[in-house]
C-alpha cells in the first residue's frame, strides 16, 4: 500500500508545489476579503444589509 502511495507522489516532478500554490492562493483571497470586510464603513454595512428589506 505504501508503495502505491509513494509511487504517485514521486511520478510528478515538484509535486509538493501543488498544495502549496493552492494554500497560498486561498490565504491571499481570504486575507484580502477579511481586510476589506473589516475596513468597510459602518454606514455602508448598514445600507447594504438593509437592501432586502427595502422593497
Amino acid at each position: 500500500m505504501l508503495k502505491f502511495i509513494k509511487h504517485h507522489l514521486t511520478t510528478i516532478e515538484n509535486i509538493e508545489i501543488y498544495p502549496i500554490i493552492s494554500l497560498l492562493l486561498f490565504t491571499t483571497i481570504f486575507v484580502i476579503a477579511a481586510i476589506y470586510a473589516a475596513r468597510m464603513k459602518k454606514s455602508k454595512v448598514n445600507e447594504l444589509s438593509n437592501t432586502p428589506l427595502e422593497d
Partner: protein
Amino acid sequence: MEIEKFSYDNGIVRNFAYATMLWGIVGFLVGIIVAAQLAFPEFFNDYLGFKILTFGRLRPLHTNAVIFAFVGNALFMGVYYSLQRLLKARMFSDFLSKFNFWGWQFIILCAALTLPLGYTTGKEYAELEWWIDILIALVWVAFGVNMIGTMIKRRVSHLYVAIWFYIATFVTVAMLHIFNSFELPVSFLKSYSWYSGVQDALVQWWYGHNAVAFFLTTPFLGLMYYFVPKAANRPVYSYRLSIIHFWALIFLYIWAGPHHLLYTALPDWAQSLGVVFSVMLIAPSWGGMLNGLLTLRGAWDRVRDDATLKFMVVALTAYGMSTFEGPMLSLKNVNMLAHYTDWIVAHVHVGGLGWNGFMTFGMLYYLIPKLFRTEIKYKGMVNFHFWIGTLGIVLYAVPMYVAGWMQGLMWRQFTAEGTLEYPNFLETVTSLHPYYVLRVLGGLLFLIGAIAMVWNLIATIRQGSFLKDEAVEAAPLAKHKSKRGEYWHKVIERRPMQMVIVSLIVVAIGGIIQIIPTIFVKSNIKPVVDENGKNVIQPYTPLELIGRDIYISEGCYNCHSQMIRPLRFETERYGEYSKAGEYIYDHPFQWGSKRTGPDLAREGGQRSNAWHYQHMLIPKKVSAGSLMPAYPWMAEDDIDIKHLEGKISAMRTLGVPYPDGYEKQALNDLKNQAKEIARDILTDLKTSGFTEKDVEEMHMKEVIAITAYLQRLGRDIKAVSKKETASNE
C-alpha cells in the same frame, strides 16, 4: 431625480413555483419507489419486474428529478423573485425568462423519458445524453444572460451579497457542466465520455461534488441571505461575515471534489488536496449557517408562528449538520468506513431533505401568499407539514446511518484467525433489511408532508388573486464617479461583469491546478506492465464493449463499484487492489460510489458463464436473498449491433488502440466470441445435449454480451499477477 415606473415579473416566479411543487412530488415519489425496491425486492421482481422500472434506471431518475427538477426549479423561483427586488428592476428579458422556464421543463421531460429507457452516459448526476447536455448549456446561459442583463439595468448601486452567490452559481455550474460533458456522440442516443478511467473519475467528481456546492448550496445560501432577513424583517446578522463567507466558500469548495475518491487509484497528491480543503470548508459553511441563524436573534418568538422562518431554521440546522459531517467524512480514516455504504446516503439526505427541501418549502410558504395577495389558507396544515416533514427526515436518516455503520463494520470485520468474519457479501446486505423498511417509512412521511403543502397552497391560490405584473417606482441609478483610492471590492460590487469574471477566475484556479496535471501529465497514470515493460491492458473485444454498454445502460454502477481500495479487508474480499493503469480504455469510468452489491473489479473468471447467465435472469436462483432485480428479458432481447462500427471508430478517436479498419472485422469477432460463450453456457445447463441451432439462437442475446463483459473485468491484471507469482516461486 425623476422617479421611474416599472413592474416586477411575478408570472415567471409563479410558473417556477408550480413546477417546483409538481417535480418535488414526482421526485420524492420516485425516491420512495427506489427505496421500496431495496426493502421489498421480491415484490418488485414478481409484480413490477419491468425493464423501465429496474433500480438501476430509476435511481438516476430520482436523483435527477430531485436535484435538477425540484431544486432547480426552486432556485429559479427564488432567484427570479429576489433578483428583481434586490436590483429594483424587472428581469432583463421576458423572452429569456420564458425560454429559461420552458427550456428547463423540456429538459426535465427528456430526462424523464430517456433515463427509464436506459439512455444514459453512465456518469452520476450527469447521466443525460449529449444533446440534452447541449440544451442544458443553452438554457443555463439564457438564465445567466437574463440575470446579468438585469444587473446592468438595475436601479441600486451595489449588488447585495445574495446576488454574488447567484453569480457564482451561474458561472461555476456553466464551467462544470461544459467540462464534464465532453463526450463523443456515436448516435442520437449514445455517446462516450471524452475522458477515460482516472481522468474521467476526477473530472466527474470535480463536477459531482461541485454540483452539490454550486447547485444545491451557493444558490440556496444566496436565497437564505434574502428570505431569512425578509421573513424575520431584520437585516442579516453580519454583512461583513457574509463577504468573508462568500469568498472563502467558493474558493474552498471547488478543490474538495477528490474526497469522493479517497483510497482509489486517483493520484495521492490530488486526494490529499481534496481532504485538506474539505476540512477547511467547515469554517465558511458554519460561518454562513451562524450568520443565518443569528439573524433571528431577538426574533425567535416569531419562529413559532411564521411558517417560512420555521422551515428555514430547520433547513439551516440541517445545513450545519451536513456541513459538519462532510469534512469529517472526507478524513481518510472516517471515509474508509463510510465510503460505498448507506452512511453517504444518510448524509446527502440530511442535506437534500433538510437543507434544500425545507428551504424550498419555506420559500413557497412565503411566496405563494405574496404573489396571490392572500394568507395561507390552512395554518394548522403548515404545522402538520413541518412536524411530519421533520419526523420524516429523522426516520429516513437514522436508519441509514445505522445501516451504513453496520455494513461498513461488517465488511472490515476479521476473525481471530485472520479471515473475513462475513465473507459472503450478501450477508452484509440482508442484515440491513429492517433499516431499508424504516427508510421507506421516513420517505413516505416526507412525501405526505409535501402533498399537504401542495394541497394547502392550491387552496391558498384559489382564494387569492394573482398579481402578474407588480407595479413599482424607483429612482434610476445615478452615474457613479470613481473616487481615487476606492476599494477594488466596492468597484466590483458595482460592476456585475467584473464580479462574474473574478468569480470565474477563483473557481477556475481550483480546476486548473487540480485537473490539468492529471489529464496532461502522463506519468500520473502508470500503465500496468508485464516483465518486458509491455502494457498488459487490452481494449475490450467488440462483444465486451457491447456488454459494457448494456452495463452502463442498466445503471449497474448504481449498486456495484469497480474500484478495490488498497485496504486489507478489501483485497481479502475481492482480490488485488485497483490500479490507475487498468482503466485507460474505460470511457466512461464505472467505479461507482455505492455498494448495494459487491465490487466487480475482479469479477472476471471467478464464476462460470452459466452462473452469470442464471444470475442475470433470476438472481435469487444462484444467490438466495439477493436484492438485485431480475433481468429475464436479457435472454430475449437481441444486442444492438447497429452502431458497432461507429462505436469502434469512436473509441479509436478517443485513443483506444483498435487497429485501422478493425470496424469491418468487429462483427465477426463478436459473433465468434458470443458463440463460444453460448456453447459454454449450454454445455453446463443442457446436460441432455444441445445443437448448433441452440447456440445460434442464444448467441446474440443481451445476456451473452453482459456475461462477456463481466468475465473480462480484472482479467488482464490477473494474467500478470499469475505470471509474477509463478516466477517468484
